[in-house]
Each structure stands twice: as structure tokens, then as C-alpha cells.
């Protein structure tokens, strides 16, 4: 086999320009795919982390049916204190959960004594909220950036609303809400910080202390609208969601009657659709790579067979078996693919390294200054290289088969 490889390499080197062009084309395709995969993965990861760490968490637990009617923030679909206690127990027992934050969500009126508008309020335990959503503090553009911003009597106001109402840190505002029984109540709060918006649902919500929320809603016992959960390994989100669902089902003995629903961030955020589009584009780019490799190698190998008909006749005449002629041409195509993949891989790694050194930043929606830190994992590299090598073999098959099937007597007559 080594000798066949040696002869194949010599054959490839005979048409240097053509070989270089083919290897360059394949390398270009590999670079395009790997850099695209690295950059798009980085973009996706940044955005997902931005969303999950800012307000969504990796997972959320709600009472069954709550998410379906989340637009109205129905207070009658909150988890009862007993259900909430069961959920807390399950979350504390789950080793994959790093932190969680219980929230009371409700719609309210926001008044600065001259103007009034509507607002969505999250009543939270500050320490729990900042632990489950560690990027919360980065969203606070003005004011206290610590959990102290959500001490009792304080409110974090979304930036768009603050600008529209002309409110600023230190201002006193009133939050008025209707409770489950239909009675109206209000509470005066001081603005402790302005929250920059993030992409997706909940990105424009205001935050208050959970006790203030209970007071406004005249809740005597703590009912919970949702739990936002952050995981130790966010990439295991689907598995944890499954295990948590099972865990919560066991709490009430009958999983089918479980009042809980566990949702991953992807089920709650519209960004998951963008992530899916990015994944689709990656597939499209890979298809383009396949086309590039297929066409370039097929073209080169067809030319090689056409130009070497007499030579094929000669080696067949002196007794080279058809199977060996087939292997010889397959190895030539394979070598082109391997060489292109290697060159492309080196170039892609260099580009990815360069992007990490230059730290390219970008803005997405209201979020600015996001820094791309693309990386390539072994799996992505292996998939791209295996694809190129596989397609190289497939592309070489037809010309190689044609060469091996040539009748030596006809090939020797070829002019």
C-alpha cells in the first residue's frame, strides 16, 4: 500500500498547478466552514449566555398552563406555597442546579406622580436572583449594581420606560396592581437602578423585592409564578430538564398529574429560532463545502484519467490488476482531499486564533460591545475533515472505476 501511495503522490505532483489549485479550493472550503462554525457557535453561545444569565436562566419551572398564558401574567396560575416548597426541595436536591430564583410576576401600573404607564414586575429574592442570573448587574446601567438594588422599598426600572417617563435613580414612584381578588393596591418605591434591556421575553421587566410584591398583591403566603434556574453545566440543559421533570413528578407521586412544567431557555426565548437559523446556515455552508470538494476532485480526477489513458493501458498490459488501478486513482483523490483538509485546517486555526487576539466586538439589538471569542472543538474539526475526506473518495470513485475498467488494448491505442 505504501508503494501505491508513493506512486499516487508522484502522479499528483506531475500537474502541480492543477493540484495546487484543487488543494487551495478545498482548503478555502474547509476554512470557510470551520471559521463560520467557530464564529457562529461563538455568537450563539454569547447570545444564549447573555439571555440565560441576564434574566431567563437555563431552565424555568412554572405551574402547568402558566407559560401558555404568560402574556397576561395570570396570578391564579401561580404555584401554591406547598407546590413552591416542593419545587424548592427538588431544586436543592438536584446536584446539577447551581442556583435558582423564585419570582412573583405581575402586571402593574407605574406612576411618577405626573404620568402613568403599565409595567411588568418581577418580585424576587435579591440574592437568589443575582445568583441565578449573574449577568443581572451588567444590565444595570445607572445606580446600585449589587443585590442591594433590590432591597425592600426599591425598584429596578427598565431603561426604555425610565427614558419615556423621565425617571431617574433616586426618584420615588408608585406601583399599583390588582390582586387575584380584584382589589387594587399600591406601594411607593424608590428607583435604585436603571436596567438596560436584553433580547427576548422579560428583557424589559422591572424588579422589586419579593416581600414588596407580596405586599402590593396582598399575598399572605408566598405564591410563586416561576423559578429561574441556572445550571452548573448549561450544555446539559435538556437532560437536566428531563431529570427535573421526573423529580418534580415524583414529589406528587403521579407524574401525569404533576402541577409543574419545566421549560428550557430555548422553549421560552425567540432567540432559539435565530439559533436554529444559524444551525441551518451551518448545514448549508457544509453542503457548499461538499459541492466544492466534489466538483474540484471529480474534475481533476476525470482529467487525470483522460490524460493518462495510454499510461493506464501500459500498467494494465504489464499485469497491474484492475483493483490496484482503482486503488491508485482513489488514493490520488484521497490525497488531494487530505492535503486540502490539512491546509484548510491550519489556515482556519490561524484565523480563529487571530479573531481571538483581535477580539472582534459587535452589537446585537440593544446589547452592545459583545466580544466574539470563536473556538473550534475537536468534534467540529473531525466532522469537517471527515466530510472532505469522505467526499474526496466518493468523487474519485467514478474516474477510478473508469480507469480500472479500461481495456488495455484500447487504452494503448489511445492517441
Amino acid at each position, binding site marked *: 500500500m505504501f*508503494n501505491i501511495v508513493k*506512486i499516487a503522490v508522484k502522479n499528483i505532483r506531475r500537474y502541480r498547478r492543477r493540484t495546487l489549485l484543487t488543494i487551495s479550493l478545498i482548503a478555502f472550503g474547509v476554512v470557510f466552514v470551520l471559521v463560520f462554525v467557530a464564529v457562529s457557535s461563538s455568537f450563539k453561545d454569547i447570545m444564549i449566555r447573555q439571555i440565560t444569565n441576564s434574566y431567563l436562566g437555563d431552565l424555568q419551572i412554572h405551574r402547568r398552563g402558566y407559560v401558555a398564558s404568560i402574556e397576561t401574567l395570570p396570578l391564579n396560575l401561580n404555584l401554591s406555597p406547598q407546590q413552591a416548597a416542593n419545587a424548592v426541595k427538588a431544586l436543592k436536591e438536584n446536584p446539577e442546579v447551581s442556583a435558582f430564583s423564585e419570582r412573583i410576576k405581575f402586571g402593574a401600573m407605574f406612576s411618577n406622580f405626573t404620568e402613568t404607564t403599565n409595567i411588568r414586575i418581577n418580585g424576587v429574592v435579591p440574592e437568589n436572583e443575582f445568583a441565578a442570573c449573574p449577568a443581572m448587574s451588567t444590565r444595570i446601567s445607572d445606580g446600585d449594581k449589587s443585590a442591594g438594588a433590590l432591597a425592600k422599598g426599591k425598584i429596578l426600572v427598565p431603561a426604555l420606560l425610565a427614558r419615556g417617563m423621565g425617571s431617574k435613580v433616586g426618584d420615588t414612584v408608585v406601583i399599583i396592581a390588582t390582586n387575584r381578588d380584584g382589589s387594587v393596591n399600591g406601594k411607593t418605591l424608590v428607583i435604585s437602578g436603571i436596567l438596560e434591556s436584553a433580547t427576548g421575553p422579560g428583557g424589559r421587566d422591572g424588579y422589586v423585592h419579593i416581600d414588596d410584591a407580596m405586599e402590593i398583591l396582598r399575598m399572605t403566603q408566598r405564591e410563586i409564578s416561576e423559578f429561574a434556574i441556572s445550571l452548573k453545566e448549561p450544555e446539559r440543559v435538556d437532560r437536566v430538564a428531563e431529570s427535573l421533570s421526573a423529580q418534580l413528578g415524583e414529589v406528587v407521586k403521579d407524574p401525569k398529574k404533576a402541577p409543574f412544567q419545566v421549560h428550557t431557555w430555548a422553549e421560552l426565548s425567540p432567540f432559539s429560532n435565530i439559533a436554529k437559523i444559524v444551525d441551518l446556515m451551518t448545514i448549508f455552508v457544509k453542503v457548499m463545502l461538499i459541492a466544492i470538494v466534489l466538483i474540484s476532485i471529480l474534475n481533476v480526477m476525470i482529467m487525470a484519467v483522460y490524460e493518462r489513458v*495510454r499510461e493506464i493501458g501500459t*500498467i494494465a498490459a*504489464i*499485469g*497491474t*490488476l484492475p483493483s490496484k488501478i482503482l486503488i491508485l486513482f482513489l488514493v490520488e483523490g484521497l490525497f488531494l482531499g487530505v492535503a486540502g483538509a490539512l491546509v484548510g485546517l491550519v489556515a482556519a486555526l490561524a484565523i480563529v486564533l487571530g479573531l481571538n487576539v483581535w477580539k472582534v466586538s459587535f452589537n446585537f439589538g440593544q446589547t452592545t460591545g459583545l466580544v466574539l471569542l470563536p473556538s473550534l472543538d475537536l468534534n467540529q474539526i473531525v466532522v469537517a475533515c471527515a466530510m472532505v475526506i469522505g467526499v474526496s473518495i466518493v468523487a474519485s470513485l467514478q474516474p477510478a472505476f473508469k480507469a480500472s475498467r479500461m481495456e488495455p488494448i484500447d487504452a494503448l491505442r489511445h492517441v
Partner: protein
Amino acid sequence: MSLITASQLVKTYRTEAIDVRALQAVSFEIESGSFLAFVGPSGSGKTTLLNLIGCLDKPTSGELQVGGMDVVKLGRRQAAEFRGQNIGFIFQSFNLIAVLTAFENVEYPLVMVQELPLAERRDRVLKALQAVDMLEQKNQMPDQLSGGQKQRVAIARALVTRPKLVLADEPTANLDHETAYLILRLMKQMRDNFSTTFIFSTHDTRIIGEAEIVYTLEDGRLLGREERQVAHV
């Protein structure tokens, strides 16, 4: 002892318009160790006959045995194996592989056909190149060699597998007279050294005299057989 026995060989090439009878009931026997030429004008059937003997083609009818093997019945793969083990070829246009050196060209059938180990290959190739006086040019590429040198390398390649039979189709057609004569003498010398049967075709009357046995072909028919007394080199 007969190396080749042909009986009533017929070869007809069928085209859409007409059938061309390239060989018509040709019968002959060739002894092992012969230095033999098929002569005749273009279109007389020389190349067709060599192709049949070399298992590159099959007769339309008739029988043909080479080295005791009924080669008419050989399949594609079996024919390739038989050629690789028993027959060497020398071509009019030398047909050296352009990307390989003289050494590698001669080594090629030992690598790809007979799959010999490296040490034995090297030994055989050097001996073959020495026999054709091309040892000094062993590292040269075909395009660095003259026509005569290329044909010497081709002879070494044909002999390196130690075949029973070497077939040469117009081996001197692309060479000047002096070189052609030298190549013929070299082939005969190889026959003497390795007891290999050499069969060549030619229409060049100047070199026919080098053959010990001459079969004359015309219009696909064997007209006669002539044995000549030629002093061995």
C-alpha cells in the same frame, strides 16, 4: 518444447458497416527460447497477433496456448495475472511512466504486479539496468533520456519480472537505424542471458535479419516461416 501453440486463429473486428478480418486461420508453434519476428506490411495482422499472444485481446475463433495455458478462456483479472507473471511487453513508443525515474519504471511491475520485498526488488532492478547498460542513468526521468535509452529501460522493465516471453510491437519504429540495430542486438543478448523467448513485430526490412525465425504475414494470413542462421552475440 512449444511455448506457444496457435491453431486456426481468427480475429474479426466488427464495425457498424463492415467486418474486418484481421487474422484468418493462423496456426503456428513457437519454441521456448526463440528470437522470432512477425513481419509484414501495415495492416497485415502483426499487432493483432501479438495482442492475442499477450492476452490483451481474444480471438474470434481458434485455439491459443501460451506456456501450456489456454489463454482464450482467461477472464480479465486472470489474464492480467497471467501477463504479470509470464509476459513482458516492449512498446513502440516505449511507454515509460513519465513521473517515475528509470529505476522506478523498471521497479514498477515488481511493486504493483509481483509485490516483491524491497531488497529483492532493488537487487533485480539494478541487475536489469546493468544488463541493458543503463545503471548510470537510473535516477533520470524519461524526458531526460534519448529514444534508445528509453527503449533500453523498457527492455529492463520487460525482463525484470523474469517472464517466459517478451513481446515487442515494432520496438525500433521510433529509433534511428543504428540505435534500432543496437536494441535488437541487446534483446537477443537478453534472450541468451535469461533464456527468455522474444517475439517482435516489424515491417522494417533492415532489422528483420536479426531474427532467427521470421513469420511473414499478409492480409491476416500467415504466408510462410523462415529460419535464419544468425550468429549469436
